[in-house]
């Protein structure tokens, strides 16, 4: 009997009752959500169960939704059952003021660096991670750059001509021009 999304949904609801919810199937991939304290229980169940066998962690990432107050950071796991060829997506949401999520490194060794990357970019604190330090950005960075409130560009540049880039005036996307804001390099500094 082939494993289908319906079967997976039934087994999850049987096991966890109403702790799992928000079942959707965008583009035929079953997506569901669970409270953050239950993430390891769900992952272990999906791993150990003989019918479900989701033993390959394809992807682990985080998303920032500033609009969902109380549930701003989402950790998204993509799991893959290689034998029956089914993929599912599992999300846990956590508050941004206390973004603690249990680590999945005990179960999947590939979660190690992916969680470090989610920490580096979004500040999700994975409880129990062996080495939760920054991985991609410089070590002394003190903010989490991929959150929506931070800008993309480096704010300390003085050589960009804001007028040419469509900034300046009131449409400045947060680049407030300082009083000695210069548009060109003065003669004294030209080589």
């Amino acid at each position, binding site marked *: 009997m082939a494993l289908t999304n319906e079967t997976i949904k039934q087994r999850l609801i049987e096991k966890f009752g109403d702790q799992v919810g928000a079942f959707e199937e*965008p*583009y035929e*991939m079953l*997506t569901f959500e669970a409270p953050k304290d239950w993430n390891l229980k769900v992952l272990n169940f999906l791993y150990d169960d003989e019918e479900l066998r989701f*033993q*390959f*962690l*394809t*992807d682990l*990432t985080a*998303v*920032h939704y500033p609009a969902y107050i109380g549930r701003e950071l989402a950790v*998204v796991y*993509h799991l893959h059952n*290689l034998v029956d*060829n089914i*993929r599912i*997506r599992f999300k846990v949401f956590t508050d941004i003021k206390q973004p603690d999520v249990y680590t999945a490194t005990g179960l*999947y*060794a*590939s979660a*190690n*660096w*992916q969680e470090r*990357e989610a920490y580096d*970019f979004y500040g999700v604190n994975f409880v129990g991670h062996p080495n939760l330090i*920054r*991985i*991609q*950005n*410089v070590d002394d960075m003190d903010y989490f*750059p*991929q959150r929506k409130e931070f800008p*993309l560009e480096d704010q300390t540049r003085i050589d960009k001509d804001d007028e040419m880039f469509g900034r300046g005036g009131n449409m400045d996307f947060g680049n407030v021009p300082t009083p000695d804001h210069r548009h060109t390099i003065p003669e004294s500094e030209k080589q």
Partner: protein
Amino acid sequence: MATTTQQNTLTEGSLATGTTKLNLGPTHPATHGVFQNILELDGERIVSTEQTIGYIHRAFEKIAERRPLYQITPLTDRLNYCSSPINNMGWHMTCEKLLGITNPKRVDYLRVIIMELARIADHLICNSVIGVDAGAFTGFLYIMQYRELIYEIWEEVCGSRLTTNIGRIGGFERDFNDIAFTKLEKFLKEYPAVLKEFENLFTRNRIFMERTIGAGPISGERALNYGFTGPNLRAAGVDYDVRVHSPYCSYQDFDFEIPVGNTGDSYDRFLVRNQEMWQSLRIIEQAYKKVQDMKGEEATVFHADVPEYYLPDKKDVYTKMEALIYHFKIVMGETDIPPGEVYHSVEGGNGELGFYLISDGGRTPYRLHFRRPCFIYYQAYEELVKGGMLSDAIIVMSSLNLIAGEMDG
């Protein structure tokens, strides 16, 4: 270090406690890219390693939140830059999945030709660089000559050699002209003999075999746990290939095999990549034949009919109103993407390259995440080289085909 040099032999009960820390730093002989490994060595044996990456972190995911779908394609080029067409096509297929576009068969077959050429290019670099690291420079020089042929084919189609930005959402920007097909035929004719010669240089070469057999083995279960995909996983014995498991782009119409290794050491990885190049050649020949056998209307189409995302013909832009509006909206990036979230993956040169795209209905993605295979399997490096010798560390690093652009991204 002083303690180990004073003792000439290890007597019972005396442990050589001095280990050396060797920094295989971010700048090492050009070919690999920038990542750092601090190796702790006991004499010549490796006790532990510590990896540092991020020396080329370019914040692709954050840039993608600001760009309309087209402008993200040049970013995807720079992920695995040895085989950038595969990344481009993967991204376009993700967009097509989100937008619900199905492509005509000819587009699929042309895409397959380009992607398999990219796979050959990637594996060529990897295999010849394993040779260079083992000391054999000749293979590299001979094979780069034939990579130039692949570059010329890409240049005919899209204008660029390395970072191609090839294809559009729904197909290709222009049809493949006769010169491109002539060059493809030349490649198909000349390349098999060259690959055979390259194989002969290495596969039964005693020095190469002694350098690579046993260097960095990994078992199938550990590889799966570490999230390995691609040739590294297939060398460990697991035959998982996204082209066969979840076929995309009409791969199910082709007849090819997946080479699988035994022990997962560097020699197996080399052989798996080598065999994959032969299989890619097979696929290209079949795709080319299918394209040539198409007749009539089917043989001229090179894009799907999706005016909101594919630039209309210039002569229509100057004469028809709808074409003008679509042209304006596409170029200025003012087309709204339907909301939804989609995950699509393709078989890149290194494994499963996945694109997780969340759209909230605006003009740019809300979140775009790249599942980069290099990043995921580099974590296993410590386990692969522990207990091996320093020279094995180099061979394992190059046989894993670590591309820094994909690792940091």
